[in-house]
C-alpha cells in the first residue's frame, strides 16, 4: 500500500506544467483561436519531443510502456492550461488502444502513433462525435461487425461546433475501412478506452478546477472594492475554501482511479466514475466561482475564465455523462458489501476471512 507518486512521475508532470505555463497562456489560446488552426505547431513539437504521445504504448510498440499513473498528473497539468492539442486523448486513449489491436493494419501504424507522427481518433459509443478526427492519422470506429480502421483522408468529415472552440468534433462517414478487431475483441478494447477517457477527463477536470481557484485567488488579492482587496471578505474566502476542499477530496479519488483502473472490475469502474463525477463537480463549482469573484470582468471574453468554463462543460459530457457514471457507482453499491475494509476492494481478491483462516 503506497499512495504516493514516484519522483519521476512528479518530475515529468512538473516539466509539462512548466512547458505549458510558458507556451499555453491565455494569449496563446487566443492566438491559436484567431489563426483558425488546429494546433500550435511549436507547442505540439515540444510535446512530441518529450515522448509523451507514446507514454502508455508498450515498449515493444515503440512507446515508453508506462501506465495511467504516469500520465494522470500530466493530464492534470494539461487541464490546468486548457491545452487545445489532443495530447491526452491520444496518449491516454487512442495510441494505447491502437497498440493493443492484434491486426497488421493496426500494428503498421502503432509505432507512428507512439512517436506522435500521427494521432489516433476514436469513435466511442459514450461520445456523440469523434474528437480531432480531422488532424488524426487514423480513426477507429466501432460498428456491428467490429472495429473499423479508417483513413481520415478517405472519409467525409462534418464538423459540429462545441462551445469550446478547441474541441474539434466530427461526424464521420466512410466507405473504405479495415475491420481490425471482431465484435468480441472490440468490447474489452472499448471498455478500457472508456475508463481511460473518463479517468483522464477527470484528471483534466482537477486541473481546470485548480486553475480556476488559483486565478480567482490571485484576482481577489489584487482587486480593491470598498477600500480593501475583495479577498479580505469572508464571502470570497469561503467560496474559494469550499472549492479547494472539493478539489482536495476529488484528487485522491482520481489518483486512486488511475492506480486501480487495470482491475477492470465493478470496483475500479465505480472508482473511475466517482473520480469523473467528483473532479468535474469541483471544476464546475470552481469555474463558476472564478467568474463570480471576477464580477462583470469574469463574464467578459477578455478574462480567461470562459476557457475553463467551456472545457468543463465539454468534459462533463464526454466519455460518459453524469447519469452514466452515477449508474456505475450505483452498480458497485449494489454489487458487494461496503464495510470499511473494502476501500480497495477487487473482484479477484480472496475475502479477508480466507486470509485469516
Amino acid at each position, binding site marked *: 500500500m503506497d499512495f504516493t507518486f514516484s519522483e519521476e512521475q512528479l518530475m515529468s508532470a512538473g516539466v509539462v506544467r512548466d512547458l505549458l505555463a510558458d507556451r499555453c497562456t491565455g494569449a496563446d489560446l487566443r492566438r491559436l483561436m484567431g489563426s483558425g488552426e488546429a494546433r500550435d505547431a511549436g507547442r505540439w513539437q515540444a510535446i512530441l519531443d518529450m515522448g509523451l504521445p507514446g507514454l502508455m504504448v508498450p515498449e515493444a510498440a515503440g512507446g515508453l510502456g508506462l501506465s495511467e499513473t504516469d500520465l494522470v498528473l500530466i493530464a492534470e497539468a494539461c487541464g490546468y492550461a486548457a491545452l487545445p492539442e489532443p495530447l491526452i486523448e491520444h496518449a491516454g486513449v487512442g495510441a494505447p488502444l491502437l497498440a493493443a489491436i492484434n491486426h497488421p493494419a493496426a500494428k503498421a501504424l502503432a509505432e507512428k502513433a507512439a512517436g506522435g507522427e500521427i494521432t489516433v481518433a476514436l469513435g466511442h459509443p459514450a461520445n456523440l462525435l469523434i474528437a480531432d478526427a480531422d488532424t488524426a492519422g487514423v480513426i477507429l470506429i466501432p460498428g456491428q461487425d467490429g472495429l473499423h480502421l479508417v483513413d481520415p483522408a478517405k472519409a467525409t468529415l462534418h464538423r459540429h*461546433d462545441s462551445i469550446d472552440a478547441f474541441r474539434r468534433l466530427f461526424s464521420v462517414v466512410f466507405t473504405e475501412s479495415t475491420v481490425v478487431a471482431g465484435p468480441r475483441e472490440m468490447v474489452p478494447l472499448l471498455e478500457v478506452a472508456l475508463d481511460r477517457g473518463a479517468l483522464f477527463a477527470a484528471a483534466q477536470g482537477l486541473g481546470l478546477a485548480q486553475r480556476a481557484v488559483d486565478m480567482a485567488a490571485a484576482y481577489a488579492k489584487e482587486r480593491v472594492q470598498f477600500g480593501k482587496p475583495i479577498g479580505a471578505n469572508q464571502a470570497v474566502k469561503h467560496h474559494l475554501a469550499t472549492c479547494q476542499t472539493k478539489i482536495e477530496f476529488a484528487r485522491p479519488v482520481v489518483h486512486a482511479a488511475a492506480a486501480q483502473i487495470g482491475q477492470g472490475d465493478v470496483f475500479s469502474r465505480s472508482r473511475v466514475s466517482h473520480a469523473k463525477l467528483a473532479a468535474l463537480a469541483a471544476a464546475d463549482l470552481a469555474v463558476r466561482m472564478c467568474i463570480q469573484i471576477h464580477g462583470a470582468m469574469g*463574464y467578459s471574453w477578455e478574462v480567461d475564465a470562459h476557457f475553463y*468554463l467551456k472545457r468543463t*462543460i465539454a468534459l*462533463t459530457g464526454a466519455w460518459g455523462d453524469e447519469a452514466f457514471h452515477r449508474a456505475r457507482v450505483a452498480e458497485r453499491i449494489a454489487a458487494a458489501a461496503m464495510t470499511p475494509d473494502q476501500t480497495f476492494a477487487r473482484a479477484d481478491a480472496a475475502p479477508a476471512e480466507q486470509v485469516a483462516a
Partner: protein
Amino acid sequence: MDLTYTAEQQAFRAEVRTWLEAHVPKEPLASFDTAEGFEAHRAWEGVLASGRWSAVTWPEEYGGRGLDLIRWLIFEEEYWRAGAPGRVSQNGVFLLAPTMMEYGTPEQKARFLPKMATGEEIWAQAWSEPQAGSDLAAVRATATLDGDDYVLNGHKIWSSRAVFADWAFGLFRTEAGSERHKGLSLILFNLKSPGVRVQPIPQIDGEAGFAEIFLENARAPAANLMGGEGQGWNVCMATAGFERGLMLRSPARFQAAAARLAALSQRSMPDATQQAAVMQAVMDADAYALSIYSTASRLMAGGKIGAEASCNKLFWSELDVALHKTALSIKGAAAELTDDTSGEPWLDGYLFSLAGPIYAGANEIQRNIIAERVLGLPRG
C-alpha cells in the same frame, strides 16, 4: 385572500393571448447583441407599441395602459408562454422609466417616455466604472456645468445594450472633490453625441452584450439632470430597488424555462439526481411566481416594496443557474454542442444565467443587504 382570477382578468388574459398569437414572430429573432438582431428587436418593440403592449404598466399618456401589477403579471405570463422575443428596451422601460415617473420633470417625461415606449430610442445604463463595480459609490466620472450643458468626462463600463443603444443614463460626480455617496447626479446623455465613444466588450459567449463608454468633454443639456443635483445616489438606489424587485425578471420567464426543463426531462431518461433537480427547479420557479404575486397584491393594497426584495435577486439568479445546469446534465454528451438540433438554447441560457449572480448587485452584496437591513446585523 382569493387566488382566482376575476372575469375581467381572464378576459384580459384572453385579449393578450389573442394579440400575441397574431403578432409574435414565428421564428426567433437574431440575438440583440448583433446589429441585425438589435434592429429586429427594435422593430418588435414598435410592433408591441402599435398594440400598446410595450409598457403596459405606464400611464396611457406615455404609451402605456396603466395596468395594475396583477395584470402586468398576466401579461408577462402570456408573453413568455407565447415565446415572444426578449425585450431590448428593458433598461429603459423597466429600469429608467419607473425612476423617471417618480423623479423626472414633466418635460423629461414628455420628451423621453413616448420614444422609449415605441423603441425609437433604446436606452443603456451607465453606472459601473472600472474601479466602481460592487462599490458603486466609487464613481469618478464627472459632470461639470458649463452654460446650459453638463460637460461629461470619464469611463463607464459593463454598460448593457450600449453597443447599439441611443441613449444612456449614468451616475456622475457633479460636485468636485466630493466623496462616496455625496455629490453624485443622475444624467441622461445621448450615446451618439460628440465626445462619446462606445467600445463593445465581448462576453464569454463572444457577443458584445455590454460596452465601455469613454466620455471626453461630451455634452448633455442641463435639463437632462434627473432628480436634482447631488441626489444621484438616492435616485439610483430607487432604481436599484425596482431592479432587484419586481420587474427585472418576471417570474413567467423562469416558469417557462422550468416547463421546458420538465418536458426535456420527460422525453429523456433522467437519473435520480436529475429528477430531483428538475422537481426542485419547478418548485422554485413556482415559489418565485407566488412570491411576486404576493408582493404585487401587497403593493396594490397600499404596501411598500421592502428590503426583502433583495431576496428576489438572490433567489431567481440561483434558481436560473441550477435550472440550466440541470438541463445540461440531462443533455449529457450533447450539452457542449452549439448547433444542438433540439432548438432549445440550453447552453446559451446557461451562460446567460451565470451573469445573474453578478449583475444588478452581486449576490454577495445582496446577502449583506439582507443580513444588515432585514435582520439588523452590524456592518462589517
